């Protein structure tokens, strides 16, 4: 069973290797004439105003949290979806309860405005 994953491991290594080779080729073939102006951050021609590691909008954080919750939900749905035929109506009911609880959470977020970007 596990040996079926060997090609995947090799593929990942080959994929990484391709990236490494490409970038190395770029370093070898390309010119190297750095100067201060060239290496400064690009801001449409102006000097950079302040540090770029700045404060950011809390909504990005909210989206990330919601993603974790919903991704977990999907992780629970996957095995259920595959065996739905065997578990029948009882399995369907159980998942309906689970989805219902998460739906209440989702509605709460919606009403609270966690999904608003204006």
């Amino acid at each position, binding site marked *: 069973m596990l040996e*079926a*994953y*060997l*090609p*995947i491991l*090799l*593929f*990942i290594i*080959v*994929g*990484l290797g*391709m*990236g*490494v080779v*490409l*970038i190395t*080729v*770029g*370093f070898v073939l*390309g*010119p190297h004439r*750095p100067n*201060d102006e*060239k*290496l*400064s*951050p*690009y*801001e*449409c021609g102006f000097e*950079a*105003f302040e540090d*770029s*590691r*700045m404060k*950011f*909008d809390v909504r*990005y954080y909210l*989206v990330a949290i919601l*993603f974790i919750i*919903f*991704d977990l939900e*999907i992780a629970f*749905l*996957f095995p259920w*979806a*595959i065996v*739905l*035929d065997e578990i*029948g*109506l009882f399995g*369907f009911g159980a*998942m*309906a309860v689970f*989805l219902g609880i998460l*739906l209440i959470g989702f509605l709460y977020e919606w009403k609270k405005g966690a*999904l*608003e*970007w*204006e």
Partner: protein
Amino acid sequence: MAELIELVWILTKIGAILGPLILSVAYLTYAERKIIGWIQNRNGPNRVGPMGLLQPFADVFKLMFKEVVLPSNANRFLFLVAPLLSLMPALAAWAVIPFGAGLVLTDINAGLLYVLAMTSLGVYGVILAGWAANSKYSMLGAMRSAAQIVSYEIAMGFALVGVLMAAGTMNMSGIVQSQAGPIWNWFWLPLLPLFVVYWISGVAETNRAPFDVAEGESEIVAGFHVEYSGVAFAVFFLAEYANMILISGLAVILFMGGWYSPFHGLPVLGPVFDLVPDLVWFVIKVAGFLYLYLWFRATFPRYRYDQIMRLGWKVLIPVTVVWLVVLALMILAGFGPWFD
């Protein structure tokens, strides 16, 4: 010795997938410029080689001989690792894609889960590239891009759950085989809302127009890879286009009957069209979806960011949840001809 031969054989097969894939990426960029050109009533690239066919190679060689700029404020190691992290999953996901009956590198049971994991990994490359460059535009682009990818991944995940319910297996070949039959037997019909949601989120996941605010060339100029140049930029470009092909390939496998001809199983037409090799059908269908990508880009204006987030969370996710319930009831009721 036997192990070594086995290893070489696997590497040969990987090469047989990667070579055509890279070539497709090259010619997808050519097709994009050509087709959008025609849509806008002009000729695309037509100077390098006959009909401009050597244009992609000219572009690649140009990028190779450009300087790779390492910005002074950048975190150098992460700056160089980021493109690798976005290229690797875009390529490695192809390990489980079946191109025809039995024509797959490795037929693992959890194929779909693996593909989902790989497409999720791409977001690390984006966020790392944006952060490591230490530039305001790339930081903003990375945040937008990551939040968008992550949001649409939920909708896409739900759509995939529908496919799993219909197919009853995570194995990619198994999913295709459960659609065996003519075109109305494929999952696009019973899962039509999920198919639409999948395709819209697929376009959004790859940050393509009309969902390309992360790139926003008129404000944050290319977003997370604004500081990248030369080959480092080419690697991001390669990853983006490989991802487009991957999303199209998945659409074909999950909803459009994979390698089956549209007449499979019909009395007279079926055997005739089955003479065409599996691979050809697969490629034709994938090309159709890729054309949609290009068509969208030439047709739709860009969404606003708040509209993108609203579409993802408030439209696509509710639609999928409702259809999952409908689908579960259809399956439990043995709704023919798909689920009996």
